[in-house]
């Protein structure tokens, strides 16, 4: 029994929307320092399966830092130090026994700028399965590539030109290619760090539709600067400010009736 986990942290909003009682991911008293900078201050949160959790807040509020705690990406930053507990399926991922490569395969990540490899569309998606040896035969690999592109809503647009360079696609297509690449290794969790900020409204709409489709089957956490996007795609919203988690709850509650003054002022655009 871990006293940290068993502490009654539950308020009415940390309860899941659906039947699944235990959280997919949980953070307890997480602090992140970058050198002398205290980027994340004592954050505790439960995140549930089959729903999209949006992290919002002004630049530098700690939302992206928090996102990167779930695949230990912060470790790639020099001088970064993480304390506290981050659990996925009740396993502490900061345990010394954790296989970071396997962790990052089960936690996919999509970035702000689409970043396909300078390889063919096919090879972009096949990259992960080849690396992890998921596919036994070439036809298995073909299947994975097709299924992943299909799931990312890109198959119809690229099926006749799989050998074209991934970087030759439009920005929106590139981002969906990156999503296909992320889901090709069959992750359980997808982290998205402002996945639409470089896209036009039509490409954004496609990604948002995709997020909704991927919701069942994956646990999705998205960092977004657009409050409207958080409102459109998420079931839970978490507001960060100056490194602290200020408020979290069902998205409808946060956008119609936030409890904390700071949340209210931020989402209404009342910065004085």
């Amino acid at each position: 029994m871990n006293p940290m986990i068993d502490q009654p942290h539950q308020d009415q909003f940390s309860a899941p929307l659906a039947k699944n009682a235990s959280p997919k991911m949980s953070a307890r008293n997480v602090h992140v320092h970058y050198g002398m900078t205290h980027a994340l201050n004592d954050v505790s949160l439960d995140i549930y399966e089959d729903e999209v959790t949006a992290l919002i807040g002004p630049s530098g509020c700690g939302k992206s830092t928090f996102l990167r705690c779930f695949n230990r990406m912060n470790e790639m930053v020099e001088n970064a130090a993480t304390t506290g507990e981050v659990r996925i399926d009740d396993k502490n991922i900061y345990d010394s026994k954790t296989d970071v490569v396997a962790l990052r395969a089960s936690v996919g990540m999509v970035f702000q700028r689409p970043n396909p490899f300078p390889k063919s569309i096919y090879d972009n998606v096949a990259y992960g399965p080849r690396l992890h040896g998921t596919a036994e035969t070439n036809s298995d690999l073909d299947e994975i590539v097709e299924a992943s592109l299909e799931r990312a809503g890109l198959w119809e647009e690229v099926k006749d030109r799989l050998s074209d360079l991934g970087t030759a696609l439009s920005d929106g297509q590139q981002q969906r290619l990156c999503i296909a690449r992320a889901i090709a290794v069959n992750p359980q969790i997808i982290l998205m760090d402002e996945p639409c900020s470089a896209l036009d409204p039509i490409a954004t709409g496609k990604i948002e539709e995709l997020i909704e489709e991927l919701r069942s089957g994956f646990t999705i956490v998205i960092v977004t600067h657009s409050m409207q996007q958080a409102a459109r795609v998420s079931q839970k919203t978490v507001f960060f400010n100056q490194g602290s988690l200020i408020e979290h709850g069902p998205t409808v509650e946060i956008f119609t009736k936030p409890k904390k003054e700071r949340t209210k002022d931020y989402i209404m655009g009342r910065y004085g």
Partner: protein
Amino acid sequence: MPSLPKHSLKAYDAELTELRAMISQMGGMAQSLLDEAVGALLSRDAERAMAVIADDKAIDALEVEVERLAVQTIALRAPLADDLREIICALKISSILERIGDYAKNIAKRTTALSADDVFEDVTILSEMARMASGMIETMLDAFVARDAEKASEVRDRDIRIDTLYNTLFRDMLTYMMENPKAITPSTHLLFIAKNIERIGDHTTNAAEMVYYGATGNTLDTDRQKNDSTSFTTSDEIDT
């Protein structure tokens, strides 16, 4: 109520202020239409009643303006939380105020229909009802402008007293009509007028409930106390 900080966008603040001012103006107009209509009735002044009928058009026009500005603000500013609730609240209150204007107009029309020799029995209760309804409109508007939930819930409590007065008046009128058939026409008009005022009280209460929601995000409990029992009254119950 802690006052909210300003928006980064000044034009957005200006729009919300304008919306609030339009509701205040509409409310002031609705209140004065009611006062004027009842004043015309009590003083048997058909000309004053005609003016009420004409003035109601201005409220209708303002309602259209409120709708236009509210839709524009929703479209351009994507309001959230308190701002969103306030705009929705303004939209609903404006249609309630328009309705109150219609009731006042109806009172004025009935006033013009009453001839000078129609005999009225005691109208103290009616004028007291009108005075209370007018006060409720005023308090509801003050509560809206100040986003004051406390004040809004107070309006609701006052509606019960109008309902009680209406019950008394209803019974009185039935009694008069049974005693004197000549009283039937004026008494019927008076009854409808009283009913209009009672409805104004109900609508103002709904508006106050919207104000409460706008200010807090919560709804006042829906099963509010009702005291109008006239729908269930039969002539057997009237002591003559």
